[in-house]
């Protein structure tokens, strides 16, 4: 990418990138202001008054889910490692079947604002709510970290700035915008931002896909051949194993990653929260169907974009660019359509990060205000609007924390799809077992829920801390740095980068064991109410009429 590096010296290109991003910000700010007029109650702030239609929500889910990891991370992984990057998209997609078949409708029928509403329903409320809130905050922070790292990397590439101060400034700007959307627009404003972003992202990916295919006469085989021609020497990018096939440990890591991806989605609090914004369970179903189609089609595009970047730009130039693996899609955009297409794709990528962090922030703040503040601390005695006020304050605090973490994460240079996979591992370990047991196993008890949530969470994060992600990964000859978060020390003993293979089964086991050893009897009346409500929709939260 010699031309691109040369272009860094000119003023024209960053100006294009900034103006397109600025246009997105202006339009979404305007819409957020308009949306805020209807924000009166907690249901408005947390769940957009439950007035979002199934189709709109499907689009918003796609906007919430297709994070920078999906767009930049997967395309980059396919461009550099080929086939192994493809697994991410397949896991991310198949995971939606868990949400569709087992979780979405039943959760919509029984929850008010947060995941804990369902999990605590037939248990001793305060300890379970606390546990669910802690795991919600943990997953959201991991996910935020990945998005902020993505924002920083993107900036380095697109604005031609690479100084620490300039990157930190941009992360601060993204964080401040995100806080503003959430404070002013609440869930309704966030929903509109996500819908606009999903439309732009899918349209942008479609254009690039058609363009790449056109370069190869719409022949998939020659595109794949082109990617193989430029592949890193000795690497078969069309067959599995380029990234994970080297050792027995890395093979297990691949399986562990696959497990975390497919089981994580239905346990992601910000995904679950989107189901509460529609009027009925049928709309929740409709929104998941839309989401599956949109997300699936997008991942098919990303396969072409990834191999296209591998073939037209080449892994060597991608890895040498600022932002490394995550730079593949923007570099391909520049190769295809020059400054203008790069500007558009850059704007879309910024918008992507902004929309996802807004969704994460509102979920984390809702969980703190609704579960921790209103239920655990105040035991339900909260003045009207007191809860929403706390949620708004929490949003500012979480925004500030994620800005700080984002600035720190800038230096790490890990593939953001990989960081997101860790958030999925936490969600699959801490949340999914308890969700499934609560919905489908009547003998599940408070102790089982606590063991499963805390056991899964502690095992997952503990194993990450003692894995090569945090310390002890081998030094990369290209950069001279280890891929670990902490350089020059090694306290790792867990060999896998992704802990899902151990922590997910452990959490299921602990939920079962905790319930079996529990002295509590399951509450039969509460259990009957939860089950009847989940399956029939009686007593489900209704839409707010304005």
């Amino acid at each position, binding site marked *: 990418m010699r031309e691109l590096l040369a272009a860094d010296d000119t003023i024209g290109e960053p100006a294009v990138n900034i103006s397109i991003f600025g246009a997105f910000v202006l339009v979404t700010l305007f819409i957020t202001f308009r949306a805020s007029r209807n924000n009166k109650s907690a249901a408005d702030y947390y769940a957009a008054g439950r007035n979002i239609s199934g189709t709109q929500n499907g689009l918003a889910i796609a906007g919430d889910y297709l994070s920078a990891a999906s767009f930049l991370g997967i395309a980059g992984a396919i461009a550099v490692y080929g086939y192994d990057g493809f697994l991410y998209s397949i896991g991310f997609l198949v995971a939606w*079947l868990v949400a569709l078949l087992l979780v979405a409708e039943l959760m919509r029928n029984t929850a008010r604002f947060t995941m804990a509403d369902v999990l605590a329903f037939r248990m001793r409320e305060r300890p379970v709510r606390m546990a669910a809130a802690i795991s919600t905050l943990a997953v959201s922070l991991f996910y935020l970290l990945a998005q902020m790292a993505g924002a920083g990397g993107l900036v380095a590439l697109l604005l031609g700035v690479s100084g620490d101060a300039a990157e930190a400034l941009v992360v601060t700007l993204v964080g401040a915008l995100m806080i503003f959307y959430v404070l002013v627009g609440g869930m309704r404003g966030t929903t509109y931002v996500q819908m606009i972003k999903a439309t732009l992202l899918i349209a942008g990916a479609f254009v690039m896909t058609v363009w790449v295919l056109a370069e190869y006469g719409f022949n998939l085989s020659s595109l794949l051949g082109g990617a193989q021609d430029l592949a890193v020497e000795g690497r078969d990018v069309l067959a599995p194993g380029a990234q994970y*096939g080297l050792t027995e440990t890395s093979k297990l890591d*691949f399986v562990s990653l*696959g497990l975390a991806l497919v089981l994580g989605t239905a346990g992601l609090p910000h995904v679950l929260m989107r189901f509460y914004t529609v009027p009925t369970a049928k709309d929740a179903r409709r929104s998941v169907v839309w989401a599956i189609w949109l997300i699936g089609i997008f991942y098919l595009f990303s396969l072409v974009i990834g191999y296209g970047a591998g073939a037209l730009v080449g892994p060597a130039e991608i890895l040498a660019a600022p932002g490394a693996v995550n730079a593949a899609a923007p570099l391909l955009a520049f190769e295809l359509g020059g400054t203008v297409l790069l500007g558009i794709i850059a704007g879309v990528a910024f918008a992507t990060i902004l929309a996802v962090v807004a969704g994460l922030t509102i979920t984390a703040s809702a969980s703190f205000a609704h579960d921790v503040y209103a239920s655990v601390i105040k035991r339900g005695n909260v003045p009207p609007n007191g809860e929403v006020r706390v949620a708004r304050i929490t949003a500012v605090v979480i925004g500030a924390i994620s800005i700080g973490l984002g600035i720190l994460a800038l230096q790490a240079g890990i593939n953001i799809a990989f960081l997101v996979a860790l958030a999925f591992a936490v969600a699959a370990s801490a949340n999914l077992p308890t969700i499934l047991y609560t919905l489908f196993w009547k003998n599940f008890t408070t102790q089982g829920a606590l063991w499963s949530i805390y056991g899964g969470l502690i095992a997952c994060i503990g194993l990450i801390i003692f894995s090569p992600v945090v310390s002890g990964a081998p030094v990369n000859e290209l950069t001279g740095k280890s891929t670990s978060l902490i350089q020059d020390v090694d306290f790792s003993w867990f060999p896998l980068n992704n802990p899902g293979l151990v922590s997910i089964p452990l959490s299921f086991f602990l939920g079962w064991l905790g319930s079996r050893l529990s002295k509590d009897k399951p509450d039969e009346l509460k259990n009957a109410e939860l089950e009847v409500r989940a399956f029939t929709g009686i007593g489900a939260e209704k839409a707010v009429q304005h």
Partner: protein
Amino acid sequence: MTEPTERRLLTPEEYLQAQNSPEFAELKRRFRRFAFPMTFAFFAWYLLYVLLSTYAPDFMATEVFGNVNLGILLGLAQFVTTFAITHLYVAHANRNTDPIADEMRDRLERHDFASGQTSATGPTSTEGATRA
């Protein structure tokens, strides 16, 4: 916070009666009959794909046409089955579970499961208990 009044619309006994009714058993049976085997099937198929990619890369590298190999085709097949299962689930729900759920919800709103007595704790009006 409207939660307390909404809860009181139906008594715990009504929920228990509804849970023990034959139509609820049938609703659950139909839901599980589809959701559980299908979950097992797509999960097994996904795991098979992951394990083949990991432990049989040479098999996955078998070229089918041009540069397109078995691994890429099986990966694309995962997309196809995901779309297909989505479609099948919606058809199943529309045809087999929604009618029972809708009917039970109507009957619950009319307090049909109150075992001979009208609801003692709440207003008889079910206005706003749910929205179909």
